[in-house]
């Protein structure tokens, strides 16, 4: 191993350094080199020691937190497909294989296209390749329906990375969460493939789908129609019972917590998300303040709608449903806590999280045209985060001046 590294340092590294043949491609070499081994740089000045944490480790740990969601999402996509296409000899194995055949291409396209943009911008703008895109490239597929055409994945991730992030200067400078920007773009540009009731479960249409290793599938010309819990709840007529309407479709509280329901790839299972959440909080990477206040905000708004005299069955849903339904929990755990686009002050984090929770429920209930309120709520609060911080900082300045004056007069 050491010999290999020595060889690379001696013979390949210099090609990419200043004056080398591939000088312009230095970010690529740097990324690969520091992927293999931490850089050997020493502190230029005081403080003379540094913490061993770096951005690579930080970002990879977010990916680790996503693993339960990824694995569950793969199984669930396959399971939903097999259940709804009448595959009789489906097993756990075929579920996983089927799911993998649907989900992995989306993840790969997201990483490849996103990676190309990231590298391109790093080379043109001469900065190092930022690990932030690892997280964006994984978050984005997890909030897509498993049937999304791959070209749309490519277009979406391009929009998210370029418009959502790189035109501002890259990770650290962006205003919006790039993965959500990408999804919002697809949502408004190609609504047919990302909303409605035909996109959440794959349909056996092609010869490929009849491949024997996935199980026996009959051709299904009409396509599978499966709504998500949010759509079901929003569609309940006045005077109806939303809980019953959902339970009729199989969306009981238990099922929605477990996650074996149609929905976006990674965001259906509360259990998987909570596993990731525990990991993020235990390692101290993501802000528990945002998560906690977000859940409180969601619950508070849900409870408020319960007591308001509205003739709207969606509003009458207990708040627990709002927490487990749709993409809210995934959003508040993985999207809202993105440190770049979230509020940075502690007080600001509480306000920011609370409003995301409250707005999510508000959008869901008051505006049934957009059943998924979490995406819009988070994007809206991303925009508002600097304003929240501004007021918190101003309040802080007032307090600290008062403190200084009081001590001086004492």
């Amino acid at each position: 191993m050491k010999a290999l590294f020595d060889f690379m340092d001696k013979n390949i590294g210099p090609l990419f350094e200043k004056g080398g043949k591939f000088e312009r491609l230095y970010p690529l070499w740097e990324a690969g080199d520091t992927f293999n081994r931490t850089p050997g740089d020493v502190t230029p000045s005081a403080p003379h020691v540094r913490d061993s944490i770096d951005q690579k480790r930080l970002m990879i740990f977010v990916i680790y937190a996503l693993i339960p969601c990824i694995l569950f999402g793969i199984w669930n996509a396959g399971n939903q497909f097999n259940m709804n296409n009448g595959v009789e000899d489906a097993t756990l194995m075929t579920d996983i294989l089927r799911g993998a055949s649907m989900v992995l291409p989306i993840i790969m396209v997201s990483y490849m296209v996103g990676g190309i943009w990231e590298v391109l911008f790093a080379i043109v703008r001469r900065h190092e390749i930022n690990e932030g895109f690892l997280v964006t490239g994984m978050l984005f597929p997890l909030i897509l329906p498993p049937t999304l055409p791959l070209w749309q994945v490519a277009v979406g991730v391009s929009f998210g990375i370029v418009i959502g992030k790189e035109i501002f200067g890259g990770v650290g400078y962006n205003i919006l969460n790039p993965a959500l920007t990408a999804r919002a773009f697809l949502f408004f540009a190609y609504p047919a493939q990302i909303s409605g009731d035909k996109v959440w479960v794959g349909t056996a249409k092609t010869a490929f789908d009849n491949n024997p290793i996935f199980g026996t599938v009959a051709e299904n010309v009409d396509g599978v129609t499966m709504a998500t819990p949010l759509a079901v709840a929003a569609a309940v007529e006045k005077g109806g019972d939303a809980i019953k309407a959902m339970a009729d479709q199989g969306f009981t509280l238990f099922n929605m917590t477990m996650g074996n329901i149609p929905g976006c790839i990674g965001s259906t299972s509360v259990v998987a998300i909570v596993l990731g959440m525990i990991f993020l909080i235990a390692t101290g990477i993501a802000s528990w303040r945002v998560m906690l206040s977000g859940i409180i905000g969601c619950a508070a708004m849900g409870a408020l709608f319960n007591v308001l005299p509205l003739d709207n069955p969606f509003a009458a849903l207990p708040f627990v449903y709002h927490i487990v339904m749709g993409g809210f929990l995934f959003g508040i755990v993985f999207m809202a806590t993105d440190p770049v686009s979230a509020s940075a002050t502690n007080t600001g984090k509480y306000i920011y999280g609370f409003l995301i929770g409250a707005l999510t429920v508000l959008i869901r209930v008051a505006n049934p045209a957009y059943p998924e309120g979490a995406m819009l709520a988070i994007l809206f609060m991303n925009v508002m985060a600097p304003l929240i911080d501004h007021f918190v900082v101003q309040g802080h300045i007032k307090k600290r001046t008062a403190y200084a004056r009081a001590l001086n007069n004492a």
Partner: protein
Amino acid sequence: MANFKIKKGFDVKVIGKPKTHVEEYASQQLFAVYPSEFEGLKPRLKVKAGETVKRGDVLFENKKNEKMLFRSPCCGTVKAVNLGARRFPVEILIEKSAEEESVTFETYTRDSVGQLSREQVADHLLNTGLWPLIKQRPFNKIADPETAPKAIFINAANSAPFQADFSVVLKGDEDAFQTGINALAKLTEGKVHLCKTAGSDIPEFGNTESHTFAGKHPSGTTSVHINRISPILPNDTVYTVTAQDVVLIGKLLSTGELPRTKVIALAGPAVKEEFRQYYKVEVGASLEPLLSKSLEGDEVRVINGNILWGGKVANDTAVPYYGSEIFALEEDRSRHLMGWTMPGLFQYSSHRVNLSSVMGLGHEWKLGTSMHGSHRAMVVTGWMDKFQPLNIMTDFLVRAALAHDTDEMIQLGILETDPEDFALASFVDPHKTDVCGIIKRGLEEIEEEGI
């Protein structure tokens, strides 16, 4: 008198704590004075290579204030004046002669100092070359003798590894310390605050108000003391001076000649265990003989200061004008396989992403100078504020400094700070931002613009 408990903070656990034993360090032939130690100073040289100087002769003066003189720590021949960029004299080397001739100054007793006027004390210190020991805030620069400060803060505390413990340094010099305090007290209409670490056995001194500070680093830094006792308001000036330097001033006043010795701590993981202790050294004397036998390791970084704050110095440095500790640690250029995912049992971290910090390994670490990662764009996360007891919103202050927003910097409290206060922020930052450098530049900008 007040006792403060600082809640936020972080102690870097590093091996190499000095024993409290003070050893006499044999007299040296070679002495050196480093004009570059005085930040922002424009020196006018008064000596040339080859000239002989008496102990206490003027070596150079401040071009901007010709009353401010800098004097020779020994009697001998100027061996060389080494110039750096733009012909700035970086070091003045002096070879000690066998015979000693000294310039003498007026002597005072503990009490007769009290009869002097403010101007007399200031002029005496300026003339004898000890005035630069007194710094002023904001901007932490050599105090302006013309402005009377609202208070003077004497820092006798220590919290960073391994700042010299003043109770060790003080032993036997209590009288000189009191004389120094009495002189300082003449410089202000306000109070003289003596700030100590909680639990240290430094006795009470007259003419001062003493305070104790408990808690992790940075409970021992002057900025924290000022912030808790009497925060700097716009147009305020305070003087700050370290306790060890007050002893030097006291010695000057009571003996009538430049102080000969001071006590320094030699510590750090790259110092051999038997040498990790305090040394009574001659001011300005070369430390080369001591360092050459006491350091171990392939490539050692010597710091005039502690592990968190202080400048790199050469391995043959002389006893500096400022500071009472020398820290040595190894340059760590090692590269770790897939550092981004390893459990991190053997990597020191204050974050919970390393097993070492999760498992609460309380032991001390043999730390090196590795960056442990590459630089990335700064993200305002609030992490830099994690260990910041000053009420300044570190992340936002750094952002304001990056944006050259002087108004916001001042509002957030940059004037209360010194780059030193951001050492822990630099330490914890996963994006490897040079926080101290950014703040230093911010302070310089404000100073240029004027407040």
